[in-house]
């Protein structure tokens, strides 16, 4: 039996779930196909950072439209998603680094973006009293924050279903073919047909793109995270570094999540990751130097989620270059969680109306195709 819909969304991460929800809100009938379960990979196990700070210029519009949604996320999905906004602070570890940050903020201001704000040592100390004395300042994005990633992805999934989307889990897409006016999506559990398809398959999205004759140089990566036992509250904002790899946040329950992009070895066919303790030790030493309060902390758990990284570090969002009716939404390169709500809305607009007012010109898949 062939099942039909208006749109087939491939991938049940935050992006696929958000797109499915926004499609349903526009009155379309999406079927979302997920090979494991929604939020099983990067969307469910990332660091939860909701950050506009330090983004590539090409994705700032998506980031800003996402932030508008994050700030009223409960109204959209019926769950506050654990979102709390205490800002993100990029800490400068030297005067030279701070000078570089100043250039960036000036440049953003000239382009009309005001969300990044340079701060001096005094303001840094006010925002992050626990940080080491030798840091001369930094940049803050005050609307930023953090949320619970799995809960968020599940909330989008749940609300999408409530609004009429169908979510099919544990089913793998095996083929994608044109069939008259429709796309025929062959899976491990039968055939689905729809005039439109969205490829939001994360670390597996290159396989979908390859079915369309659009091979993309997607790297499969697995950024590592670790979490400590509970500590007395000592830090509100999310802290990130530029020179060394670190992201650092204390959750409401007192545990501290330490990440920053050191990579595990991913095995995408068996959904496994093998951690690299040498690199986690580097993270531990960085934390040790920046936050004396962490010296007594205990590491309770470490993990990594499998996701896609593009050669230029920014995602693929837009139409397929070969296949009318197919759209890509993948390759968020270890910073896609915050972008999920807004990109889903933009994608739904693009799918439903054929265009979007949000500038996404620099994110097309064409940039990877050999001329």
């Amino acid at each position, binding site marked *: 039996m062939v099942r039909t819909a208006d749109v087939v969304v491939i991938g049940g991460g935050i992006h696929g779930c958000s797109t499915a929800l926004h499609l349903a809100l526009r009155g379309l009938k999406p079927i979302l196909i997920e090979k494991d379960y929604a939020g099983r990979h990067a969307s469910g196990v990332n660091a939860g950072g909701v950050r506009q700070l330090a983004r590539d210029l090409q994705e700032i519009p998506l980031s800003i439209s996402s932030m508008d949604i994050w700030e009223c996320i409960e109204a959209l999905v019926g769950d506050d998603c654990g979102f709390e906004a205490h800002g993100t602070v990029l800490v400068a570890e030297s005067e030279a680094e701070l000078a570089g940050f100043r250039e960036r903020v000036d440049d953003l201001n000239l382009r009309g973006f005001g969300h990044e704000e340079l701060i001096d040592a005094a303001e840094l100390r006010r925002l992050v009293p626990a940080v080491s004395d030798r840091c001369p300042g930094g940049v803050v994005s005050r609307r930023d924050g953090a949320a619970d990633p799995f809960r968020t992805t599940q909330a989008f999934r749940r609300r999408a279903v409530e609004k009429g989307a169908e979510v099919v889990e544990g089913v793998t897409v095996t083929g994608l073919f044109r069939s008259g006016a429709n796309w025929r999506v062959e899976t491990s559990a039968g055939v689905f047909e729809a005039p439109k398809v969205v490829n939001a398959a994360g670390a597996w999205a290159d396989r979908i793109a390859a079915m369309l004759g659009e091979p993309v140089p997607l790297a499969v990566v697995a950024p590592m995270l670790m979490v400590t036992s509970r500590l007395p509250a000592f830090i509100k904002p999310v802290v990130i570094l530029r020179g060394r790899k670190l992201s650092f946040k204390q959750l409401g329950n007192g545990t501290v999540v330490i990440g920053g992009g050191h990579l595990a070895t991913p095995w995408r066919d068996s959904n496994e990751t093998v951690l690299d303790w040498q690199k986690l030790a580097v993270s531990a*030493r960085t934390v040790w130097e920046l936050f004396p309060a962490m010296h007594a902390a*205990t590491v309770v758990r470490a993990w990594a989620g499998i996701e896609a990284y593009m050669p230029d570090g920014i995602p693929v969002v837009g139409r397929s270059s070969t296949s009318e009716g197919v759209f890509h939404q993948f390759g968020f390169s270890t910073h896609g969680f915050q972008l999920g709500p807004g990109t889903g809305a933009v994608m739904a607009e693009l799918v439903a109306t054929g265009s979007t007012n949000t500038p996404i010109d620099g994110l097309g898949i064409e940039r990877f195709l050999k001329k």
Partner: protein
Amino acid sequence: MTAAADLASSYELVVIGGGPAGLAAASLAARAGVSTALFDENPGVGGQIYRAITSTPVKDRAVLGEDYWDGAALADEAKASGALIVNGATVWSLDRQRLVGVSIGGKARVIEAGRVIIATGSQERPFPIPGWTLPGVMTVGAAQTVLKAQGLVVCERTVLAGSGPLLWLLAAQTLRAGGKIDAILDTTPRRNWLQAAVHLPDFALSPYFAKGLALLREVRARVPVHRVDRIEAVGADRVREVVFSSAGGTRRLPVDLLLLHQGVVPNVNLANAAGVTHVWNDRQLCFVPVLDADFGSSVPGIAVAGDGAGIAGGTAAAERGRIAAIAAVRALKPDAVVPDTQAIRQRLQREEMGRAFLDWLNRPADGFRMPEGETIACRCEEVTAQQVRETARMGCEGPNQMKAFLRCGMGPCQGRLCGLTVTELIAEERKATPDEVGYYRLRPPVKPITLAELASLPISEAERKAVER
């Protein structure tokens, strides 16, 4: 004392756990010329069954029983074998590339292993009854640890509750050491006898038959035994009384110490984190690793011996350790001389005879494994059985999804004390099998390590350069 800095960067064989399986495996491999390191978390070898075998202050051999002292021979043999035996060594990570993360005296190292034998044994099955988290409620295993290691015996008003051989053994050991037990609440469901009886002939031939009967007689002669189907620990600040009921009605006993036990299950955390495939064993009501005839797991080069491979007891554990070690030696040094496995397999078979009887007889009742209402399921995060059941009914399909909703299994114990309970509760609510529901995907470190320990890992040359940009 071996320090972290004294360790080589690699060993041909790393054995994890110094109980009977680990000791036997390490001795055999080292004697065959394999460079072998055995890491054991405790101050001395012996594991749980032979805990403190080299140091116990209990000198009267009758107190702990002759079987306990078998451990001394294993420990001596391992010491003489040339294996490097490191106590106070906590293994906190193992992966499919056979990198072993270990901490000794606050310093961490990652060691490469040609082969790994996991011999981390068993742990007591969770026993989630109302009030089980009150001070004064302990496990039988914990009480036995104190007896073996410190020679201490309970002298307050004490009640033992549950089922399984260890419960009766501790009762006997306590009485022999001069302790007193007010009552034993036997939770063995009467109908278990129906399933167990079929296997009685095999059990009658096993060495455990006569020993078991003698133990029961010894304890029953001195302690009142009540058969019960419900137990509750009651008290505001600590346990004050135990309330129990059976077909005959409800009774209460004042108590200072309530010791719980309903059998042991494989300690799966390290193997699970290493990616070893596990399946549900319905007879033993627990997850066990999928293993070949040599105890090799689904991950190449990693074997699981001892009770971690499925509960079979201490003597069987040693034989399993030998079989796993022979396989490791053959893979590492094909020309080495090793004992014939046939004889070992026969001894193992004899030990395992009668296991079916014990398993069926001691299968804990549903009500003691799958609690209701406000009874705590996850101690670390204080999650109740009701919350788990409601979340499962809401659509949550497995323990890993449950973590995000309730944080169960995300505390320092990483699900050791709630994993089976949560899996079975979800399975019951969703009318699925425990295999379908699955178990927590465990994440290293499987034992918590401090940030300082992690930071103490030696820096590699590549990273030194990266940092010194």
